[in-house]
C-alpha cells in the first residue's frame, strides 16, 4: 500500500480497529508488548501513515494529519487501557500468591517490668508532680537511723513491735531496716528545709513467709517538714494519694481516707490510716449493703500509719521544733498492690514466677 492509500480514512480506521482488536486479544503483558510493536511501533500502519503525510500536497496535509492523530491517539489509549488492565490482573495474582497467615508471628520474648516497680514509680510520680522529691537510703542500716533517732529508746517496748533482723558483726548496731523511716532521718539531716520527700524502698522484718506476710516487703513513706504544717495537711495528702491510685467515684468525690488514733514512737499525734474500700466505696458497711469481699464489708481497708513528726525526732535531726512542724506517713506497697489487683497471696510477688510479672507488665 502506497503512502496516500495509507492515509485514506478507511485505511486509518482499519488500522485502528486492527490495533484495538490485537490489544484486546493480548492475554498477557508480553503479548501486549508484541502487539504494541506491531500497531504502534515504527513499522506499524499508523506510523507509516504519519510518515506519508509529508508526500501529500500542502493543502491536504492538515486534514491528513488530523486523521492520523485521531487514529494514533485512539490506538495509544486502547493500549494504555489494556496495559493497565493486564497490570492490575498481574498485581492481583501476585498479591494473592504472596498472601501469608498474619496470625502466625515469629516468637519473640516479651519482657515486662514488675508491678511493684511500676507502682513504686507511680506513687513517686504523684508526689513529684506536686514538687516533692524522691529520697533513698541504704537497706543495711545503723540502728541510730532505724531506731534511736526515731525516738525508739534502747529498751523501749516499741523496738519489740518490729521484729528486727540484725546483721553481723554482733553488737555493731547494723540492722536490715525495718521501715523506710531511716530515709526520713537522713533526709532531715542532709536536706535543706523545707522538706517534701517521698521514700519508697524495701524493708525487712523477721516474719515467716505466709500468704499475708513476707520477711521482705516494699514500703513507701512520705515526709514533710515546713513552717505551719498541720494534721489537716496530712489528711489532704493522704486523700490526694488515694484518689491518684484508686480513682474517684462517679459523683465526683474522690475515694477517701480516714485516720484513727494509734501509737508510733516517731509521730505524735499518731494515727492509723484506712482507705475507703475502692471496691464497694463503703456501701457494704451501710445497712442493707451488698457484702464486699475486698473489705470484709467493713467499708474501710487498713492502709498504713501516719502522724505529726514527734518533736523529739526533729531535735535528733537538728531541726527546731518551735519553728518547724511536719507530718509523715507510710504504707505497704505490696498491700497496695494486692488491693489494686485483687491478689490474695503475697508470695506471688516475691517468688519470681514470670507469669505473675508478665500478666501485670502492662501497668504503667
Amino acid at each position: 500500500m502506497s503512502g496516500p492509500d495509507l492515509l485514506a480514512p478507511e485505511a486509518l480506521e482499519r488500522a485502528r480497529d486492527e490495533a484495538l482488536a490485537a490489544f484486546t486479544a493480548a492475554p498477557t503483558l508480553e503479548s501486549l508488548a508484541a502487539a504494541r510493536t506491531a500497531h504502534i511501533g515504527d513499522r506499524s500502519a499508523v506510523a507509516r501513515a504519519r510518515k506519508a503525510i509529508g508526500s501529500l500536497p500542502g493543502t491536504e496535509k492538515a486534514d491528513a494529519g488530523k486523521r492520523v492523530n485521531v487514529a494514533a491517539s485512539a490506538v495509544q489509549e486502547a493500549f494504555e487501557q489494556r496495559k493497565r488492565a493486564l497490570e492490575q490482573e498481574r498485581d492481583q495474582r501476585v498479591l494473592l500468591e504472596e498472601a501469608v497467615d498474619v496470625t502466625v508471628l515469629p516468637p519473640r520474648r516479651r519482657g515486662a517490668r514488675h508491678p511493684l516497680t511500676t507502682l513504686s514509680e507511680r506513687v513517686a510520680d504523684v508526689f513529684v508532680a506536686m514538687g516533692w522529691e524522691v529520697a533513698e537510703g541504704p537497706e543495711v542500716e545503723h540502728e541510730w537511723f532505724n531506731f534511736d533517732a526515731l525516738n525508739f529508746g534502747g529498751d523501749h517496748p516499741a523496738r519489740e513491735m518490729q521484729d528486727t533482723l540484725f546483721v553481723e558483726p554482733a553488737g555493731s548496731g547494723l540492722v536490715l531496716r525495718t521501715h523506710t523511716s531511716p530515709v526520713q532521718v537522713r533526709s532531715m539531716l542532709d536536706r535543706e528545709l523545707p522538706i517534701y520527700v517521698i521514700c519508697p524502698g524495701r524493708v525487712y522484718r523477721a516474719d515467716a513467709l505466709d500468704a499475708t506476710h513476707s520477711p521482705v516487703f516494699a514500703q513507701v513513706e512520705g515526709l514533710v517538714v515546713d513552717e505551719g504544717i498541720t494534721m489537716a495537711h496530712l489528711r489532704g495528702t493522704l486523700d490526694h494519694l488515694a484518689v491518684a491510685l484508686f480513682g474517684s467515684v462517679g459523683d465526683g468525690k474522690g475515694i477517701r481516707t480516714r485516720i484513727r488514733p494509734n501509737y508510733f514512737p516517731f509521730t505524735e499525734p499518731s494515727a492509723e490510716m484506712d482507705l475507703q474500700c475502692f471496691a464497694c466505696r463503703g456501701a457494704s458497711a451501710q445497712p442493707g449493703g451488698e457484702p464486699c469481699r475486698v473489705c470484709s464489708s467493713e467499708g474501710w481497708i487498713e492502709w498504713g500509719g501516719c502522724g505529726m513528726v514527734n518533736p523529739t525526732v526533729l531535735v535528733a535531726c537538728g531541726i527546731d521544733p518551735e519553728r518547724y512542724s511536719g507530718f509523715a506517713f507510710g504504707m505497704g506497697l505490696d498491700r497496695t498492690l494486692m488491693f489494686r489487683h485483687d491478689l490474695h497471696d503475697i508470695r506471688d510477688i516475691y517468688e519470681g514466677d514470670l507469669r505473675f510479672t508478665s500478666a501485670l507488665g502492662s501497668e504503667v
Partner: protein
Amino acid sequence: MRVPVSWLRTLVPDLTASADDIAAALVRVGLEVEQVHRVGHDISGVVVGEVLDVEELAGFKKPIRFCHVSVGDAVHDVVCGATNFAAGDRVAFATPGAVLPGDFRIATRQTYGHTSDGMICSAAELGLSGDPDGILVLPVDSPLGADVVELLALRDEVLDIAVTPDRGYQLSVRGVAREAASAFGLALADPGLAETPSADSDGFVVRVDAPEACDRYVARVVTGLDPAAQSPAWLQRRLTLAGMRPISLAVDVTNTVMLELGQPLHAFDLAALRGAIVVRRAAAGERLVTLDGQDRALDPGDLLITDDSGPIALAGVMGGGPTEVTAATRSLLIESAHFAPLSIARTARRHRLPSEASRRYERGVDPALAAAAAEAAVRLLVTLAGASAGVVTDVDTRAPQPILVLPAAAPGRLAGRDYAPQVVRRRLEDVGCTVAGDDPLAVTPPSWRPDLTGRAELIEEVLRLEGYDTIPVVLPTAPAGRGLSAEQRLRRKASRSVAAAGFVEVVLPPFVSPESLDALGGGMDPPRVLNPLSAQEALLRPTLLPGLLAAVARNVSRGLVDVAVYETGHVFVGPGGTAPPTPGVDGPPTAEQRAALDGALPPQPRHVGVALAGGPASWDAAVGALVELGGALGLTLQPRAVEAGPDLHHPGPYHPGRSAELLLDGGRVGLAGELHPRVCVALGLPARTCAGEANLDALVAAAAAAGPQPAPVVSHFPPASVDVALVVRRNVPAAEVEAALRKGAGELLEAVQLFDVYTGAQVGEGRRSLAYTLRLRAADRTLTDVEVLAARDSAIAEAGRRAGAVLRS
C-alpha cells in the same frame, strides 16, 4: 487486754450503750478493739430445776443416777453421771430442745435402760469454769423454772483490745473505763481513788536499796486466811472472761485486782519469809528458782525482792518457789509496788519471762495506785477468806509529777483547726490531767499517764478525743521541686531497656546460702544475718545471681520453656564495720559521728542481673542485654573475653569460652555469658543457661556524670560504601579489628559493620576472614574516589599494624 463489758459497766455505772457501740466509741478515740467476743448468747432452754428423787442404778462401770427433776410446771426423767448432788438441790436443767455452748442440742434419748428427758448441767457445760465432773448446784432460793442464763448473767461481751506500748493504763478495766466514760460523757467510779489506811510505824520492815528502780513499795500483812476458802463463782467468771485461769483464792484475788486496776500484786507466804524485805539489784553469782521451776542465774541488772535467805522474787516479773502461796498458807504479805519500766523490761527479756506483771510494768503502772490496789486485795481476802487485815508498810520516794506548759492555741495550730480553750481544758481533764491557768495552760499529767511527757502528747489527747474526723482536709503546697534526680531517671531507663530486650522483672528476697555462692565460684564474704529466718540462708546476697538462677530453675520446673528474667536491686559486698559508739538524740550527730555511722555500713551497690534458659537462650542475649542497657544510658560497654586459667577456671560461674567481662572506659563493670556446664549441673539448671550482672550504680553514675551529649552534624552529602575482607589469626577478637579500622579510617568513617565471618581452607588453618562494610561520609562535600580509597587503605593498614590483619586476596 480482754475487758468483760459487765465489769466495765461496774466502773461506769451509767453506761447503757451496747457492747458494739462501746467498741465503736473506743475505736474512735484510738483504742484498738480487735474483736467483741460474745459469750452465753448461744445458750437457751436451761432453767432452774429441783431434784425430786435420786435412784442409784447398779450394774454399770461407773455410778449412774436416775432422777426426777421438777421445773415447776413439769417433771422430767433424767439419767445423770454426776454424784455431787442430792434430792432437794436446785440445779441448772437443760430441757429437751435446749442448746448449750458449741451448738450442743439436748434431746430426749434412751440410755442406761431409761428415758432421759433432758440434762442436768455442769458449770463447764454452761461455759463457766468449775468442776467438770460435778454438776452445778444452785442456791436453794433459785426460783424454780427461772431462765438460768438470766439468773447467772451468763450473757456477756468481752472487748479484746490491743494495747500500744505507750498506753499501759489500758491494760486495766479502770483505764478502759476512763476512756469509755469520757467517750460517752459519763462519770467514772474510779476504784483507784478508794480510801486507804495509812502506814503503820510497826509495819513489816521493807528497805529499798535501789530507789531508782522502785519508788514505791506498799506491803500489807493479812492473817487468818481460811485455807479452804474458794473463789466465788462471780470472781472465777470475771477471771475466765478476762482470759485468766482461776487458781486459788489468794492468787485469784491478786489477779482480779491487777485486771481491774492495772497494778500487779504479789502475795508471799508470810510464814516463809525470813527477816525484812530488801529491794535491791542482784549480786554476782546469785541464783533464784522461779515459780516455773527454773533455776536462774541472776544478772547484776536484775531487780530483786530479797529477805534474809537471799532472793525471793524477780521484782515485777516472777516470784520464787519457797515463798509461794500454797494450799496451807494462812497468812500473806501482799506486795503492791512501782518498778521502773526499763529495769523490768530488761529482766523480762533477759530471762525470756514475759508475764502479766512485767507486761504492765514495762508499759508503766500508776505509782499512785499501790496503796489502793493493796487495800482492794486485802478487803477481798477479808470478805472471801475470813482474813484479818494486818500492818501496813508504805515506802514512798516518788518524785512530784512534772508540770507541762501548753499554749491554749497549740492543739489547734497543729491540727489545722481551732479548739475553744474550754474544750482543750476539758479534754485534758478527761484523761485525768490537772489544768491550771488560762493561756498558757499549766498541765499536770495524771500519775497513770507516764507517756504524757511533752506538748505533743498533750495535743494528741485533745485531738483524738475531739475526733480525728473533725480535722479538715487541706493539700499542702510544696515549693517547686527538681523532679527525679538524674540517677533516678537513669535507673528507670535502665530497667525499661532490659524489659524491652525481652526480660521479665522479678523481685527476690536477698537471703542466700553459702552453698549457693560456692556453686558460683565462692570467694565472696557478704554480711551475715545474726537471727536469720532460715539457718540455711543466713547471708545477704553479694550478687543477684543465686536468686535469679533459682527463679529460672523454678520457672523451668513449672513447665515454662523460654525463661528470661532480670532483677535490679541492692547487693551487699563485704561485711559491715565495727560498732561506733551510738550518738545520743539530743541533737544531730557531729560530722565525725555521722562518718562513723555511715562508715560502719557495708557497701551495698545496686546491681542489675539477667538470667535466661531454654528455647533460644544464648550467651549473646545475656551479654547483649547489658551492652544494650549501657547503650540506653549513653555508655559504650565493651565486651572482652576473660583470660581463663590453665584448668579453664574462670572468675565467676561462667563458661570460659562463652562469656565476657564488660568494660566501661577500660574498667570492669559487669560479667555475662553462658554458665559453666558444671554450674548448670550443680544448680539443677537447663544446659546452656546464660546469665549476666553489672554494677548499675557505676553505670548510672558514669551516665549522670557525662552531662548533655553534643548534637551530631547530620551530613546531607551522599555516603560512600567500601567493603574490606581481612584475614586475622583466629584468636584476634573482632572488636580489636573494628577498633583498628575505625582509627585508621579516621573522621570520614560514619559506620562500620561486620557482615561476614569465614573460616576454612581458603584462609588457612588458625585464621579467619572478617568482612566489613565501611560507610564513609563528609559533612561538607561529596567524597571523591581518591578520598574514599585513601581512607580504606589507611583503615586496612591500621588493622594490619594493630591486629595483624591482611587483606583477603
